[in-house]
């Protein structure tokens, strides 16, 4: 056990703590009736990911490459020795990557809360763990621990800690999920109005944001894969980008006089800034990191409003935070913080190609799965489970169901 092992194990713990952050964030922003289901879905997805990513997903992501597309070895937790240059054990690396997979997958739940069934979400989670997240991970990070590079990595695509692999993948699957599941009942009026679905507990969401923020220190700091001299600066860049995002969201809202749900706006800005810097936390000055956070945090809340105007009910702002934040980080990040071995234009083109590929694969596989689930097991909970009572209290479970007005053949002859 080396010092780097110890740091990566601690960082993995920080990233796992993000599960608690997501849980608080989502429970706080969901409506009260749905809090228990939201919390339980977050627990369930971690259990599924732990099993499937460890057995299958890790091999697809980091196994020997089949043409740069997916891995074909290292299944069943058989990581083996890491190549020279790594100061950590294979199993430490596996644990760290497992917490990353859990993060990518739990991002999706936030967009679909209050209406998706546990069964449908569980199937989606399984697909994410074996076929969506690790395939994209292989494209970007395949070859990190040996074998040929993934095709995007080979082109020079830069995604330091997973703005694309983790956050954009989660956001893209969330977006197709929203399209398949549809908006929450009553969110959009027939007259074109958008109804306000107030968060049940904004302080809880703020606590979740703080926990996520702390987790990000491990997320990005751990991505150095060792206790190196770079770690403190990586964490500082991460921190200041989150701060820039929050402050920009606040200032823009105040300047525009858009102070409704200011707490949620600030949370959105902070998280978008943290997502953006994840792409380039290994590069550039603190000022550049702050600027990137400002851009992402200033823009994300407004993308959320744009989605609402398009009648896209992204319940907890997953697409603005994780999607817009990631795209800004991946595309503008290298412009602000440096482009490594590539020229500026070439770097931007490669980054755009990577963004398109990540969105494409996530949308195609996730979308196809959602269509199948919709037609077979169904995606949504019963309308009666989804609706709130007038006082927003949980609906009492009926002891005896009221008799329904069952139809007969004779009735239908007149009615159809």
């Amino acid at each position, binding site marked *: 056990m080396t010092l780097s092992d110890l740091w990566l194990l601690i960082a993995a713990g920080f990233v796992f703590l993000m599960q608690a952050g997501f849980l608080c964030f989502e429970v706080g922003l969901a409506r009260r009736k749905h809090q228990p289901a939201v919390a339980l879905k977050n627990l369930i997805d971690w259990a599924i990911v732990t099993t499937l990513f460890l057995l299958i997903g890790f091999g697809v992501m980091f196994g020997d490459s089949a043409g740069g597309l997916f891995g074909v070895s290292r299944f069943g937790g058989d990581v083996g020795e890491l190549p020279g240059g790594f100061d950590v054990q294979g199993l430490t690396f596996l644990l760290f990557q497992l917490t990353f997979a859990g993060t990518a997958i739990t991002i999706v739940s936030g967009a679909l809360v209050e209406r998706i069934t546990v069964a449908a979400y569980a199937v989606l989670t399984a697909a994410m763990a074996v076929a969506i997240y690790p395939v994209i991970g292989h494209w970007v990070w395949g070859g990190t621990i040996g074998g040929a590079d993934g095709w995007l990595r080979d082109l020079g695509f830069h995604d330091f800690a997973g703005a694309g692999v983790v956050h954009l993948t989660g956001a893209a699957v969330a977006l197709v999920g929203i399209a398949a599941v549809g908006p929450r009942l009553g969110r959009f009026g027939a007259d074109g109005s958008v109804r306000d679905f107030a968060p049940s507990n904004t302080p809880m969401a703020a606590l979740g944001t703080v926990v996520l923020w702390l987790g990000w220190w491990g997320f990005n700091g751990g991505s150095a894969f060792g206790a190196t001299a770079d770690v403190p600066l990586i964490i500082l860049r991460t921190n200041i980008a989150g701060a820039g995002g929050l402050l920009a969201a606040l200032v823009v809202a105040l300047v525009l006089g858009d102070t409704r749900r200011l707490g949620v706006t600030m949370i959105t800005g902070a998280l978008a800034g943290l997502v953006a810097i994840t792409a380039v936390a290994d590069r550039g000055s603190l000022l550049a990191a702050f600027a990137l956070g400002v851009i992402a945090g200033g823009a994300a809340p407004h993308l959320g409003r744009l989605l609402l105007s398009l009648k896209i009910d992204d319940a907890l702002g997953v697409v603005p935070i994780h999607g817009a934040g990631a795209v800004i980080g991946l595309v503008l990040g290298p412009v602000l913080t440096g482009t490594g071995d590539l020229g500026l234009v070439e770097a931007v083109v490669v980054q755009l190609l990577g963004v398109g590929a990540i969105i494409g694969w996530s949308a195609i596989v996730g979308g196809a799965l959602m269509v199948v689930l919709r037609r077979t097991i169904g995606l949504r909970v019963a*309308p009666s489970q989804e609706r709130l009572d007038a006082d927003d209290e949980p609906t009492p479970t009926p002891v005896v169901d009221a008799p329904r007005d069952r139809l007969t053949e004779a009735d239908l002859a007149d009615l159809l």
Partner: protein
Amino acid sequence: MIDQVAIRRSLGFDLVPVEDWLELEREEKRRLLLEDRVEFLADGESVPVREALEELRTSPVAA
């Protein structure tokens, strides 16, 4: 006004616009209704089945 129809599948519901419901074959609609697998919604609120079918039979959307 009926704007959505929730159709129960094996483990959950499929929420479709009323136009999609109207495009289903009459036999398919009959089967779903007899199996008590359909819930009609107006602005998110449930509408009694008979009332909903009466409305859809006479609505401009159906025409």
